[in-house]
């Protein structure tokens, strides 16, 4: 899928996503236990929110269709290039960090995370000094652990 295609239909996609979410949420209201001691039960507001969101989703789809018709393809090079792969890798690193923190401990996991994240967020045109990065990662993770564990008495995993 080209970037232009995504830009053109992102309004509709957002509308569809919201609508599906609203429907799922409304179905969820059916499973809320009914109580009788208040005029309106626990399911009342979720139903209202759900229907409003459903309506807004429909409006967004309508607006998205109108925008896609008006959309003029920008043939010039995009001003700012984006790298969605880098976002995904960064996110996977974050998930892995939280998932393994309990097993290998806060300090080791954090040092690894800081090192990887620094590499991922580095601009392509600058060089990374690996020794500095390793020192940064290790010192910061040990430093924060000592600060929060020993000074602030916050319990951290590991």
């Amino acid at each position, binding site marked *: 899928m080209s970037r232009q295609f995504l830009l053109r239909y992102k309004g509709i996609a957002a509308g569809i996503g919201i609508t599906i979410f609203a429907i799922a949420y409304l179905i969820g209201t059916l499973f809320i236990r009914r109580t009788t001691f208040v005029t309106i039960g*626990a399911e009342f507001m979720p139903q209202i929110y759900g229907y409003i969101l459903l309506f807004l989703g429909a409006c967004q789809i309508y607006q998205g269709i109108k925008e896609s018709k008006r959309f003029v393809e920008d043939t010039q090079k995009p001003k700012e290039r984006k*790298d969605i792969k880098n976002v995904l890798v960064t996110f996977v690193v974050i998930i892995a960090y939280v998932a393994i923190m309990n097993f290998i401990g806060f300090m080791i996991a954090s040092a690894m995370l*800081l090192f990887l994240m620094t590499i991922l967020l580095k*601009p392509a045109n600058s060089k990374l000094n690996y020794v500095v990065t390793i020192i940064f990662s290790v010192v910061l993770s040990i430093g924060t652990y000592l600060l929060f564990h020993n000074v602030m008495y916050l319990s951290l995993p590991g």
Partner: protein
Amino acid sequence: MLESFAIGAQAILDPISLLIIILGVTLGIVFGAIPGLSATMALALFLPITYRMTPISGIILLISLYIGGISGGLISAILTRIPGTPSSVATCFDGYPMTAKGEGPKALGVGIVYSFIGTIMSTIVLIFLAPWLAKIAIKFGAYEYFSVALFSLTMMAGLSGKSMIKGLISGFMGCIFATIGMDSIGSVQRYTFGSVQLSSGFNILPVLIGLFAISEILITAEKAKYATKLDAVQVDIKGIKGFGFTWKEFIEQKWNMLISGLMGIGIGILPGIGGGVANVMAYGAVKNRSKYPEKFGTGIIDGVVATETSNNAAIGGALVPLLALGIPGDTVTAMLLGGLTIQGIAPGPLMFTQNVDIVYAIFLTMIIGAFSMLFIEFYGLRGFAALLKIPKHYLLPGIFLFCIIGSFGIGNRLFDVWTVLLFGVLGFAFHKVDIPPSPFILGFIIGPIMETNLRRGLMFSQGDYTAFLTEPISAFFLVAAALSITLTVRKNVKNAKKSRLQN
């Protein structure tokens, strides 16, 4: 009132508290100055440190960060034309052209002095308005709270940026996520899928950290590879008299200052919006009433005065509903709400009788913080400008680590850390489809207040809805809500027609 001030002064007039204020303001300015880092992030970063502090020390640190964070944005706006925070977007319009003309130090001096004036103006309003409002609010019952909440919710439609629909989607998504967990009246489980962790719902802090800090990291990851280097113009303040502008210029700006300050305060008081909206609106207003609107954008101090007075004035404004009603005025005060709750303090009218020391400590921190900001920011300019060069690929991972610790520390459970990640992804998705995240927070906080009070009110009135209309204050806010919706829809229809005609 003087007695209350004495209590507040007793609490914060000691060397450690003053040191916390100076440190907080300085760090706030650093966060404000570096583009991509904001006052909300500064609070997210330092939140875990406040967990073990006394409530007063914790809250004065957070307030100082807030003051510094909102003002610091002017440094990069003026020196690099990139706003440090959304609060100084319009500062670029005239601030940078002034730098280009060689008037950088003057632009910075003006920005800093009017940030100070904005903070002081709004603090004065806060000191007089909040206790008065709290006195009224203490009499509020379920009907009134429901109507105020409903009115606040209508605000998010009108002021949510370009698209009203997207703003509303964001707001109602916030309401929806707040329904997860046990309901507050009948303890009925909603959307918990049998999970014990989910039954207490999502805590506001991980939601905020995820939505504003983690999503920012993902946005940086997206642009990181092709990021261009930030070059700050070198500015030397040596040999500059005072703050770089004359008394005559100061007197000429008095009306601009007053209008911008009042606009900032007003916008700050309205729930959900703060300095980010105030600076752009004040700039527009001052430009409209100016005798020489064509000069705006070419580098005149009027523009800088408008934006910098209004964004800092929004701070005091945003604290008014937080302290008097427990409803935050913007995202940073939503963070403060979370910070106070962790300390066991519930913001709202009762604070003025139960936590007088904290309320007045906040007022005094605002005043001392404003003075600290004035001097630290001006005389530390060179240092702050040098900080703009710190590579973001070292800064953001460090901030991320603190965010994780902060969310883990709330309840000593990994569940809150997962919450941060979930809302980080949601924030990133919002960014991709241009949905503003601020109304989400407003909905997340106000949704439950509205629901609880609606149901409670109906319990009192035994199912009679007219009770919401027969109570005068409640009726007033319901009418205001209806009016707000009508005006917003009318404005949007007009705008739509205008853009259709242009096409």
